[in-house]
Structures are given as structure tokens and as C-alpha cells.
């Protein structure tokens, strides 16, 4: 594999892993014919290229044991501008997940929400509190006495419910286990097939893209 190809893979993975970033040892597993040292050298040169390229708004930053793609600091004024444009979906994915969990599980602590979501929910909680969709409804028993959250009447009003009972049953809405499983299996096979096709035609890939 050419260093070019390796760089393209690293860039793609850095993009997809976003804020989380990617660990050096994950990269080693994905590019097994590449030593940690070589990977480090590759990423360092990519770092430099991003910095030198004034037409790029991205940069690679270090994180413990790995790297993360971020925007360059000089973009902040423009990001602020974008953040203040009223959005088509007024609540972020994080906020929607969090408020849904609270609606179904209230009263619920931040720790529980974090566990269900698998990521920190502090920021989302803060937003939801400010927007008045959730409120503190008490304290948990035991050590720490964690704050418990519940939804407000504004929440019901906003989503057009008269009571929480009108929310779709969670099981039906969120899982539909059979259909999902079928779809997953189907997808898995298709996916394998696609991967095989791609592998077979790896050198011609650029053609597909530019078509």
C-alpha cells in the first residue's frame, strides 16, 4: 500500500471518529503492515501539511495515545456565526437522545443517562435545562445524592402531548427487534459483498469516484 493510500485512510478515520479521535493502536490494527513508528511519522507529516495549507480549515491535534481532527482556531468566529443561525432542527441529536431518555426513565440521574448513551451528557443536560424542557425533580438516595431530572410541562407542550402516556411505547418505537435484525443480517451480507467487490477493484476506485 502506498503512503498516499495510507494517508487517505487515516484522514477518513480521523474524520469519522471526530471529537473522539483515534488511538495509535487502532490505526496499527487497521493498517497492519505499518509500524507504529511509521504511522507516527505519517501523521506528523499530515499534521504539517494541514498547517501549511491555508486552504484547509482542519488540523490534527494530539490526544493521549492518539490523534484527533479539529478545526483551526482562526475559524472560531465563523463557527460562532453558524451556531447562531436558527436551525431547522432546533434540538441536537445529543439533546434529543437525552430528553427522550429522561422522559421515559424519569426521575433519572446524569450518571444513568451517561451509561445509556455511552457518552457524557453534561452539555446536553445544560442546554435542556436552559431551554426549560427538563428540570431537577429531586435527589437520589445514598452517597453523592445525585440530582435527578424529569421533563417539564413545556416538554409536553413542545412535543404536543397532553400527558407522558401519549409517548410511543419505547419497545415498539426504539427496537422493533425482528425487523432490525433482518435488516442487519441483510445489510451485513450486502456489505461483505460490497467489500469484496471493492477489494477486487481497488486500483480502479478513483474512477468510480470521479464518475
Amino acid at each position, binding site marked *: 500500500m502506498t503512503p498516499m493510500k495510507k494517508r487517505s485512510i487515516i484522514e477518513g478515520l480521523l*474524520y*469519522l*471518529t*471526530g*471529537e473522539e479521535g483515534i488511538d495509535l493502536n487502532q490505526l496499527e490494527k487497521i493498517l497492519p503492515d505499518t509500524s507504529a513508528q511509521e504511522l507516527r511519522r505519517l501523521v506528523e507529516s499530515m499534521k504539517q501539511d494541514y498547517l501549511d495549507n491555508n486552504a484547509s480549515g482542519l488540523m490534527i491535534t494530539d490526544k493521549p495515545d492518539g490523534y484527533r481532527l479539529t478545526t483551526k482556531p482562526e475559524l*472560531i468566529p465563523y*463557527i*460562532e456565526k*453558524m*451556531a*447562531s443561525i*436558527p*436551525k*431547522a*432542527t*432546533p*434540538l*441536537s*441529536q*445529543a*439533546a*434529543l*437522545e437525552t*430528553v*427522550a*431518555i429522561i*422522559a421515559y426513565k424519569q426521575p433519572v440521574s446524569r450518571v444513568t443517562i451517561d451509561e*445509556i*448513551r*455511552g457518552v457524557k451528557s453534561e*452539555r*446536553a443536560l*445544560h*442546554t435542556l435545562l*436552559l*431551554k*426549560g*424542557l427538563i428540570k431537577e425533580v429531586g435527589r437520589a438516595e445514598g452517597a453523592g445524592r445525585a440530582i435527578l431530572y424529569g421533563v417539564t410541562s*413545556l416538554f409536553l407542550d*413542545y*412535543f*404536543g*402531548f397532553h400527558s407522558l402516556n401519549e*409517548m*410511543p411505547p419505547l419497545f415498539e*418505537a*426504539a*427496537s422493533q427487534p425482528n425487523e432490525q*435484525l433482518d435488516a*442487519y443480517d441483510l*445489510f*451485513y451480507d*450486502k*456489505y461483505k459483498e*460490497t467489500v469484496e467487490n471493492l477489494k477486487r477493484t481497488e486500483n480502479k476506485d478513483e474512477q468510480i469516484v470521479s464518475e
Partner: protein
Amino acid sequence: MEYNVKIDAFEGPLDLLLHLIKQFEIDIYDIPVSEITDQYLDFIHQMQRLELNVASEYLVMAATLIAMKSRMLLPKPEILDDLSDEPYEDPEDTRQALMRQLIDYKQFKEVADSLRVDESRRLLLLAKPADDLTDYETQNLSYLPTENRATVYDMMRALERMIARRKLQQPLSTKIDKQVLPITKQMTVLVQALRASANPISFCQLAEHYDRIHLVVTFLAILELMKKKAIICRQDSNFSDILIQLGEEADHFDTDEETFDY
């Protein structure tokens, strides 16, 4: 006639009929009622013989086909009696209606196929989730726009995405669950874990990281190891935690053929 296709493979009676039309090279614009009825019934009977669950809508279609076929065999009444309780249904009308229905459905099926191609091409292009830009918001956060409001479906969709994400983060995905987790292997893992640990291990400790299938296999592995005296289990009272430690045969138990795998 061999039937390798299961009825689950069809999206309903119309889909099955289209399959038969294709298989027997029947002209969809001039469907022979007798032939299609026989083929359809044949298929349904095979499925029933295989004790496969045939949904009611397939049986309704079977009844329609039989009624049509039998009416075709009868002579058309010379004088139509409009006042009779059961007005005469011209089987030819039924046939035309069915054909139109099949042609109509076939079109959408073809569109669905072409959408499938578009979808699979699309699924090759991945994007990361959007960053939460709340920190960059300079305006008042407590503002909740009433236009373009989020709906309950947005919320459900968010949950669905979260579940998809979580499924992938778990050490065992659905896919792996289905794979064989050999008891023998789990036995070895257990003995190794006990060797590595100076103290007895509690059953609850083992249960911590595992899903249900894993747990069942682990439990069976424990029973098997007890039988072979490779481990000793101790429980102080009913329902208290079970403590597991190495037994006298721990060094030379072998995982023989008697041990069945799941």
C-alpha cells in the same frame, strides 16, 4: 417440482404470484387463470406440508383464485338477473382486475429495486455525527424556536440512532451472539482466570461483563468443570454469591467429546 424458496421470501400473495409468473414464463398481460391457480395452490400446499406458517392474506388470495377458476368453468348465464341476492361476477372482470393489480405492484417493486441500488451506493459514503455546537452559541440558549419544532419522530429517530451506535460499542454484537461460543473454550478461559487470580472468584464478578448467552455458557462451563473436579464452588447460604476456586484436577482436566457446545 422443487421448492427451494420459502414463503418468508415474499412480500405477500402478489409478490408470490409475480414470482410464479416469472418462473413459469406466464404472460402477465394474459394470465391463464387455471394454470396460475394450480401453481399458486401447489406452492401454498408445499409450504403447509413443510409446516411453515402461511399468513392469512395468502389464503385469501388462494380463495379468490379458486373462485375465479371455478366460475370460469361454468357457462355464463344468458340472462343476467340483477335482482338476485348474489349478482353475477364476471370472472373475466376479476381476471382483468387481478392483472392490473399485479402490473401496478410490479412497477413499484421495480422502483423498490432501483431504490435499493441507490441506497446501497449511498451507504458507502459515511459521515460523522454533527458536532454539538452549543458551546459556540452566542445567542440566548434559553430561546426555544417554535417554528420548525422538533417532533416526537425526531426524538424517536435520535433514540434509534443511539441504539445503533450503542449496539456497535458493545463487545458482543448480535452477529457474534449467534456464533458458537464453545463451552470447552469457556472452561479453559475460566481455569486460566482462576490461575491468574490469587483468591477465589465470585460468580457475580464473572457475570459483570457478559450478555445472557455468554452467561449461560459460562454457567454450563462451571458445571462441567465441577463434574471434572477442576474447580470447587462454595456458597455460604442460599442465594449468596458463589465463590469459585481451583480444584484438585485443575491441571489435567481435558475437554473431551462429551462436552457439547452451543
